[in-house]
């Protein structure tokens, strides 16, 4: 019988079809019986969906951009 530690690991392997049919069956059975593991499985499906849609909020300060330009100029002078 698969325990929770093994089941959480098998979830990832199942997604990449890395489990034998027997292990897949064991995982399915475990998820039917075990609420915490089912929650783990669902949480990760949610997280994966969120990861597909990142906001583009971060930006550099004017000072950061200036220092990139300075380094770039230094490189240009070298050549």
């Amino acid at each position, binding site marked *: 019988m698969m325990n929770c530690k093994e089941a959480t690991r098998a979830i990832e392997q199942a997604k990449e079809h890395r489990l034998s049919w027997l292990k897949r069956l064991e995982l399915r059975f475990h998820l039917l019986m075990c609420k915490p593991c089912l929650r783990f499985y669902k949480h990760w499906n949610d997280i994966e969906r*969120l990861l597909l849609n990142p906001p*583009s909020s*971060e930006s*550099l300060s004017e000072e*950061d951009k200036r220092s*990139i330009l300075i380094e770039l100029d230094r490189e240009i002078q070298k050549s």
Partner: protein
Amino acid sequence: MLSEADLRSWVEEYSDPLYSYIIKRVGDDALAKDLVQETFIAAYKNRDKFRENSNALAWLYTIIKHKMIDHFRAKKRKPTDSLDDHDNIDAVLFDGKGNWTQAPSSAFFSSDMDEAERTEFWAFLQLCQNDLSEQQKMAFVFKYMEGWSSNRICKELDISSSNYWVLIHRAKLKLRQCLENNWLNE
């Protein structure tokens, strides 16, 4: 060929999207800024390879992605080291029989969020990524942000398949736990 003036205007135009892309992956602000800077310098050095009329930002993304791969490869421990030996997340979350000691809560992560909530989620994610070892972060970033298969990750980053499964499992356990503690239960 790409002129120096073009490159200067690219810094103005494209440094924000490049920074936004890389900070989510490497987490560390100073490192992210260095990688953006190195990207423009590499673009200058390879300016003869840029074809006019092609997409400048796409080209810069290709460069910064390679920089990120180099960064993670350099951080990788020697293959003879057994990895992640000191990580005790398994012992924290599971008992000796492999049963949960801290079971996931019944709260859920809604995927239907507005821009402000998504920004908040990403801020917590970035915070939680700091709990990961560099190798776990590498497995997580390439799997879930770059969408690589486990095969490709093992091949390009030169890690064994069994290593990979340990890394990604621990990364997922830690990230989910951290997000639950800090974001769901806030």
